[in-house]
């Protein structure tokens, strides 16, 4: 008796779901308009100025251009045209902020400073002694809890904003979520430029802008100083029988190019990671000069460790002259370094040009006992 109407209802729901999906598909970002301040390198944020002189921070996804949220101290975003379904987050600068990533902490420290820092989910991942001491002395609270954040602690801390990622449901509990997408930026300076946005959020955009200017200047200096010799460099590693590496549009590739080298994966224009078959990778490897591997090892990285990661690395190592390692256990690659892209650039430049370790110790040359004649 129920079969016919049930079937009809079933089809209706399927159609409804499809329509809903289409509606939520990513849209193209807005083009540059009057009344907008665009950052120089970053693509994930911009400021909108209304006629009344109100500034609203607009946050989006750097790769797709989709607008995630608008942020300001005011209750509405008058005059900012970003579409009805984009949520507006009201932040109270006086009440400080909560971070959910070590990168946030360092970007803030570089710019506005950590005065407003009230809570953090990654206290145990922080490595910088100065930051840890600060956290200790100002009793920054650990706000992590099951399923994300501990609701009770957040209620007590009552922050003015909570820095999070692009996948967060911004309506959850009506908390002041601010989606930060720095890790999706295609240019290393774009990533660092987020210190300006975060400084604005913390209430001292001047400090952020000045800090970034200095970073930008040092980066430009390092870039100009590097004489391109076109040394062919590639990065990535084997996992699950496939080579994973950033594409030519990623910030890693940009770094290598800026350092005077050539990013070996020329044909793959992706911004994010790509997977290549081992065969095509080995063919590529035969024409390259240096392999840069980013990995984590508390006891230091030796040749044996690299082989232990995957035995096929042996073939890769045979084909290249130099193997360089960035050991994230020793270098805060995901934390401090994000705010200082010029360190990576300078070290990469010495790597490319003089085949030696740079001043910041980001990359170390791998000893190859097997290569000794």
């Amino acid at each position, binding site marked *: 008796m129920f079969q016919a109407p049930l079937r009809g209802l*079933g089809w209706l*729901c399927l159609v409804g779901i499809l329509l*809903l*999906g289409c509606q939520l598909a990513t849209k193209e970002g807005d083009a540059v308009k009057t009344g907008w301040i665009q950052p120089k390198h970053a693509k994930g944020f911009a400021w909108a100025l209304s006629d009344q002189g109100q500034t609203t921070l607009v946050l989006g996804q750097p790769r797709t251009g989709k607008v995630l949220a608008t942020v300001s101290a005011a209750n509405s975003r008058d005059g900012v045209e970003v579409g009805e379904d984009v949520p507006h987050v009201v932040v109270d600068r006086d009440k400080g902020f909560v971070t959910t990533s070590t990168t946030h902490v360092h970007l803030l420290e570089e710019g506005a400073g950590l005065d407003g820092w009230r809570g953090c989910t990654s206290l145990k991942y922080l490595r910088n002694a100065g930051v840890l001491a600060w956290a200790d002395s100002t009793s920054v609270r650990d706000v*992590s809890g099951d*399923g994300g954040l501990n*609701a009770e602690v957040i209620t007590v801390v009552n922050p003015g904003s909570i820095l999070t990622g692009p*996948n967060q*449901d911004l309506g959850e509990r009506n908390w002041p979520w601010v989606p930060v997408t720095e890790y999706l930026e295609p240019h290393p300076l774009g990533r660092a430029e987020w210190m300006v946005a975060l400084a604005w959020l913390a209430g001292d955009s001047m400090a952020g802008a000045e800090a970034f200017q200095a970073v930008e200047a040092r980066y430009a200096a390092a870039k100009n100083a590097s004489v391109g010799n076109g040394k062919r460099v590639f990065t990535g590693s084997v996992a699950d029988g496939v080579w994973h590496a950033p594409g030519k549009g990623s910030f890693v590739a940009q770094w290598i190019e800026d350092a005077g080298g050539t990013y070996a994966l020329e044909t793959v224009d992706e911004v994010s990671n790509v997977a290549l078959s081992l065969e095509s990778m080995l063919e590529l490897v035969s024409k390259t000069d240096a392999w840069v591997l980013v990995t984590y090892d508390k006891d230091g990285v030796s040749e044996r460790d690299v082989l232990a990661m995957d035995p096929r690395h042996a073939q890769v190592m045979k084909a290249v002259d130099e193997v360089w390692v960035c050991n994230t256990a020793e270098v805060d690659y995901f934390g401090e370094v994000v705010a200082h892209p010029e360190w990576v650039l300078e070290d990469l430049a010495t790597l490319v040009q003089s085949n030696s370790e740079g001043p910041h110790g980001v990359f170390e040359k791998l000893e190859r006992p097997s290569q000794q004649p």
Partner: protein
Amino acid sequence: MKTRLVFLLMLLALGLHVALGEVDIAWGELLGALLTGGEVNEMHATIVKEVRMPRAITAMTSGTLLGWLGLLMQTWFRNPLAGPGVLGITSGGSLGVALAVLLGWALPAWMAAAVGCFAVLLLIGVGARRFVSPVTTLVFGLMISYAVSAVVTVLQSSATAEALQTFVFWGMGTFGKASFLQAMSCMTLQVLLGMWMMRRAQWLDMWTLGEDLAQTMGVPKARLHLEILSLTGLILGVVTSVCGPLAFLGLATPHVYRFFHPKRGHMDAIQGIGVWGGLLALLADGAVRWTDSMAMHWPLNAVLAILGAPVVLAVLWKRTHDWS
């Protein structure tokens, strides 16, 4: 009687969940916050009413609902190892969330889970006419679970690390994301299901005597099948969307009841399983909140599995002949 004792324990657990937490709140303030009128620090009131109460109520009602659904599944399929997940509806919820999170749709997880669950429910409903026996429904549910797992794995392999993390966290299950409204919906469903089960208790008892015999005693098989599927689908859809996919509560609670209580009639079982479900869920959440405070963060499903797996093993070990 024993059920009364368990009921009191459950209330005690509920009280502890509201009274204790990261922040010390005095008894006077607690009562003031709950009964409005009385001097209460506004933040404390918020914590009690918006953080602790929804969580505790969600835990308690979810435990009861899942326990009842587990009883329903075990009676209907005449199988002591059946649980609410057997119909594949929870898997549908996972698929919904996987699609939303891993493909980057801007849908809140609870909505995506609800859509996924009800999509599977519709699928079952459309095909239910063809299911000749409960066994066929069971196999259908299993096949859906497998198919969904396959699709989810494919989605996972091309997802960003952050999206993957969000999805994995959703799969761990939690009572802490429920809003007050969602907690109240669960309570409403509890009243609904409780009333339905008490009305159908006699039919369910008859069903344990045998499918054919039950029909000759007046149990309308097709209608009962439809009611069971609809209610299970609806309730499981809501609970999964509010808490994520919860393991073991549905399967293990009826067995815990049977271990402590001799009566097998459904009227008695409904009451007993109702209070045991609430109590077990509150205990599990207590463990989760305690590990939270020690910065260890054990996920809810892990705690439920640690509590639940031994129960299932005990069932298999004992192989009692009067489990139903």
